């Protein structure tokens, strides 16, 4: 019988394979060893049989080998690998390596857990990441809103002067006040006067010519007082004389392209030439200041109708800011300022208050600010939303993590049996949670960056530019607290003996009572419904404001900025001729002029009186005013309900500066305010101009509908014209070229601009829409977090009921029946949540709408829609899992438990 080497090897290997202790690859490795050994022996002259015997005998007895292999496998059971290694390394005097190995081992282990539960861990990380990102973004936004202009040097010592007389407060101040405060009060180090001008300025440089509508007229030391960064020029020399101008970087690009604009000429209005002496970085979004140009206050009357009274006779349209040398009690300073004012004026009742710079943005004090304000209430709501999101994320994270871990209780038990202390187990879990949170933070940072880089520019959402130490520290603090909350609780719970006993008794696969899950689900559904409903209401209210009838023919009106000084172009005596020419165009019905566009007469004045007005009511009268031309009411489609409109036939209708006389027209609200039956012919006076009331017009919305219709009086004075108001024939297309042609005949060198009143009305609610968008986005994030939480809870509850489902199936329930049963349960939760959410949300909505003078109704469909969407989402998220649970082979689910 010949020796068959191959058969012998196979036989020997087969024999070895029957022994325990070998793993994949072990046998193969040994087989190769035998072949190597045989090859080398036969090469040295041995026969195949001799070589085979030598190779196998030197390997040793199969049983002994099996023993050794087994030992090598189980060695690590006694002492977990990472501890073994770390121990060795700390003895090898290399703590850094040891630390490194520990860290990577922990991370590896956490990753292993994540890999083992891919779906759940992914959900867990994503939910926490969204929660962290959303609350971080919202809190940063809130922080930013509270810290306007805080980057300015000594910003906490800069105050704005508020004049307070009785109930009325305003920011208008006396021309000489700034100077007097600085000289007479030692506490005040510096002061500055500013006038924000939002009328039109026709600007030209080289070939570029635009209508500009945001300029700041300021005292010469603007940039030394406010440390806004300059791109070109020096703060000390930014406005050296009355012919100099500082422009924003954006404006510099617009007019001069990439070339350095310093020293270049720019003409404004009718031939007033200014030299660019400084270029500043455009004001950031978190500034109270808006303005593309800064011009010397001295030349304000050359360019605009604004007059700064240099004496203490009356106040002018200027803000006064002061810089205190050190912070001190406000009451003392207020008293000193009052005395100062009393020395210079005969008004003994007026007080001066000091408003901190950071307070301007959030404190609605004045009728009119250079930058839209935000109410503290909204910021509080936002903070609440942020904390809510964070809280929900943490709770969801915690529950899901415990859910995941409780699926591998065997490991914990074995560790316990081998003597792992509670402290060790605790640390192990805590590390694992921290690793998960670390992943969440990374993903969350990604989401936040996505928000800043992609969403902000795309949807004009609030940008975040105010990043300072206090914000970063608070965010880090939140992270640490979140880590502790989300880490300590599950770690304590999972490392406790109670938990293990729990596991041991095998009563349950989840350490919470089933009711806890139900309560959490209902809580989240309730929040979900409230947020949805509130979002819908916000949207409805904004649409309502935009679409509500303003009381005039808004769709048929356009306005053209009258961007030239009185007496030039179409302004003043030429206006009649211009209107005549325009009316010849087929698309144009009426041409008239006014101080502001019909949609936004944001003028206010006090000092009004009329025949029979009692003195004590005099103080309270704050009216709006409008200077119009003939045919204004006809053009707008507003009825004159008493008396008549201004008429060229009556010479005394227009304002006469010589005799200080004029005629007045008032609106219905004004008439109610006066409280008299027949106002016609009654003497009315303001600013020292006397005259009779000649007419009353019906009310219309000349301002944003956030506020009630105010009393308004109309005068006729071309000095106060800014806008040409044109009523167009809706049946005809307006041709810009035709208007351009007429315009060129009168004012060749001024740019023509056409604005639709409809667009302006939408613009009034831009901040509303912005807010709606912001709140929608943030609640959408909250909704996502809640949605993820719901998935979590449903998954956990299915795990919990796995056995029950199995038994039901065994007893003959069909998949469809079980599906219905499980979904019905969630439908019930949604119903309960709906009932819970209804009243508080309604109450909250009522309070919110109370901010608006004109408000939409809280419709039943808002709640219905919110409820239905919630139900839909709930069923969608649970259905796939319930399908899985219900269609599973019952044998598996029962046995596995």
């Amino acid at each position, binding site marked *: 019988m010949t020796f068959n080497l191959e058969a012998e090897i196979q036989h020997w290997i087969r024999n070895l394979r029957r022994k325990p202790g070998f793993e994949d690859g072990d046998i193969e490795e040994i087989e190769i*060893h035998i072949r190597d050994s045989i090859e080398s022996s036969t090469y040295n002259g041995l026969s195949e049989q001799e070589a085979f015997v030598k190779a196998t005998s030197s390997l040793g007895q199969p049983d002994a080998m099996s023993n050794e292999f087994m030992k090598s496998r189980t060695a690590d059971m006694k002492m977990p690998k990472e501890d073994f290694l770390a121990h060795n390394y700390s003895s090898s005097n290399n703590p850094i*390596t040891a630390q490194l190995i520990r860290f990577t081992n922990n991370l590896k282990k956490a990753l292993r857990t994540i890999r083992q539960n891919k779906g759940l861990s992914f959900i867990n990380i994503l939910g926490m990441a969204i929660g962290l990102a959303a609350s971080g973004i919202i809190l940063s936004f809130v922080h930013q809103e509270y810290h306007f202009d805080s980057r300015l040097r000594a910003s906490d010592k800069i105050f704005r002067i508020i004049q307070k007389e009785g109930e009325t407060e305003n920011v208008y101040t006396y021309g000489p006040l700034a100077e007097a405060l600085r000289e007479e009060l030692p506490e005040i180090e510096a002061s500055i006067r500013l006038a924000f001008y939002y009328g039109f300025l026709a600007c030209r440089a080289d070939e570029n010519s635009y209508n500009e509508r945001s300029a700041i007229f300021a005292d010469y030391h603007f940039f030394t007082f406010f440390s806004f960064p300059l791109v070109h020029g020096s703060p000390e020399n930014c406005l050296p004389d009355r012919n100099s101008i500082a422009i924003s970087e954006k404006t510099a690009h617009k007019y001069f392209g990439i070339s350095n604009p310093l020293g270049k000429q720019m003409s404004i209005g009718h031939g007033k030439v200014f030299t660019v002496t400084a270029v500043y970085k455009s004001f950031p979004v978190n500034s109270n200041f808006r303005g593309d140009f800064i011009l010397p206050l001295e030349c304000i009357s050359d360019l605009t109708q604004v007059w700064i009274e240099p004496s203490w006779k009356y106040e002018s349209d200027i803000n006064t800011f002061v810089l205190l040398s050190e912070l001190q009690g406000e009451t003392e300073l207020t008293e000193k300022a009052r005395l100062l004012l009393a020395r210079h004026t005969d008004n003994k009742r007026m007080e001066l208050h000091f408003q901190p710079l950071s307070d301007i943005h959030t404190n609605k004090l004045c009728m009119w600010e250079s930058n839209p304000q935000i109410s503290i209430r909204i910021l509080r709501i936002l903070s609440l939303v942020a904390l809510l999101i964070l809280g929900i994320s943490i709770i969801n994270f915690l529950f899901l993590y415990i859910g995941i871990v409780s699926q591998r209780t065997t490991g914990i038990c074995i560790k316990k049996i081998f003597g792992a202390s509670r402290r060790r187990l605790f640390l192990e879990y805590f590390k694992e949670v921290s690793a998960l949170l670390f992943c969440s933070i990374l993903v969350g940072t990604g989401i936040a960056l996505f928000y800043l880089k992609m969403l902000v520019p795309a949807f004009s959402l609030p940008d975040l530019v105010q990043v300072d130490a206090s914000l970063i520290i608070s965010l880090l603090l939140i992270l640490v607290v979140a880590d502790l909350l989300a880490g300590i609780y599950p770690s304590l719970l999972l490392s406790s003996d109670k938990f293990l006993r729990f596991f041991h008794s095998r009563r349950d696969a989840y350490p919470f009572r089933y009711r806890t899950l139900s309560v959490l689900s209902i809580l989240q559904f309730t929040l979900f419904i409230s947020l949805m409903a509130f979002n819908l209401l916000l949207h409805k209210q904004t649409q309502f404001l935009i679409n509500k009838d303003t009381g005039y023919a808004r769709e048929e009106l356009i306005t053209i900025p009258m961007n030239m000084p009185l007496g030039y172009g179409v302004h003043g005596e030429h206006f009649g001729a211009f209107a005549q020419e325009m009316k010849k165009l087929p698309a144009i019905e009426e041409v008239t002029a006014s101080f502001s566009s019909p949609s936004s007469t944001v003028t206010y004045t006090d000092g009004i009186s009329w025949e029979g007005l009692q003195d004590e009511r005099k103080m309270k009268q704050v009216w709006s005013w409008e200077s119009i031309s003939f045919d204004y009411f006809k053009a707008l489609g507003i009825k004159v309900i008493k008396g008549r409109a201004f008429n060229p036939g009556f010479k005394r209708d227009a304002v006469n500066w010589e005799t200080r006389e004029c005629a007045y027209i008032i609106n219905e609200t004004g008439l109610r305010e006066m409280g008299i039956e027949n106002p016609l012919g009654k003497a009315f006076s303001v600013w020292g101009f006397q005259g009779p009331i000649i007419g009353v017009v019906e009310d219309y919305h000349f301002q944003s509908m956030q506020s009630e219709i105010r009393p308004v009086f109309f005068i006729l004075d071309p000095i106060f014209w800014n806008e040409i108001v044109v009523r167009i024939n809706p049946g005809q297309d307006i041709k810009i070229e035709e208007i351009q042609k007429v315009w060129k005949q009168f004012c060749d060198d001024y740019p023509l601009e056409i604005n639709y009143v409809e667009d302006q009305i939408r613009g009034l609610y831009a901040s509303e829409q912005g807010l709606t968008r912001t709140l929608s986005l943030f609640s959408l994030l909250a909704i996502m977090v809640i949605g993820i939480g719901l998935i979590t809870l449903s998954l956990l509850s299915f795990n919990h009921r796995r056995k029950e489902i199995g038994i039901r199936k065994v007893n003959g329930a069909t998949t469809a029946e079980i599906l219905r049963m499980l979904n019905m349960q969630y439908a019930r939760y949604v119903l309960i949540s709906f009932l819970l959410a209804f009243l508080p949300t309604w109450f909250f909505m009522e309070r919110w709408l109370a901010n608006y003078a004109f408000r939409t109704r809280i419709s039943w469909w808002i709640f219905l829609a919110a409820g239905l969407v919630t139900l839909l989402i709930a069923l969608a998220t649970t259905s796939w899992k319930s399908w899985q649970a219900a269609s599973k082979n019952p044998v598996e689910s029962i046995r596995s438990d």
Partner: protein
Amino acid sequence: MASKGLMAASTKPLILSILKEGKSYGYLIIQKVKDLSGGILEWSDGMLYPVLHRLEKEGFIESEWIISDNGRKRKYYSITEPGKLELIAEKEEWLNIQAVLAKLWDIIPGE
């Protein structure tokens, strides 16, 4: 022939030292030990593999299957960074023991 206890203790530094020279597979490692020791150290071939596996589990060495030029698949082992550090520690220990014994046995004259 070295005693069983000493053999067991020396496998780790031996394997790590051999692998420090470059990656190798089981049969070759055994051959190398035999050649170097001139037969003083004679392992049972079958015992090497469990040791290799344990060292791999401990992270000192790592393995990969490589198909060699003659088409045979072999499991190659190579030393890892922790392995190199471990070898340094081992070396120190062995040298310390050796120094003590050498003094005792007057191989190196005592002070």
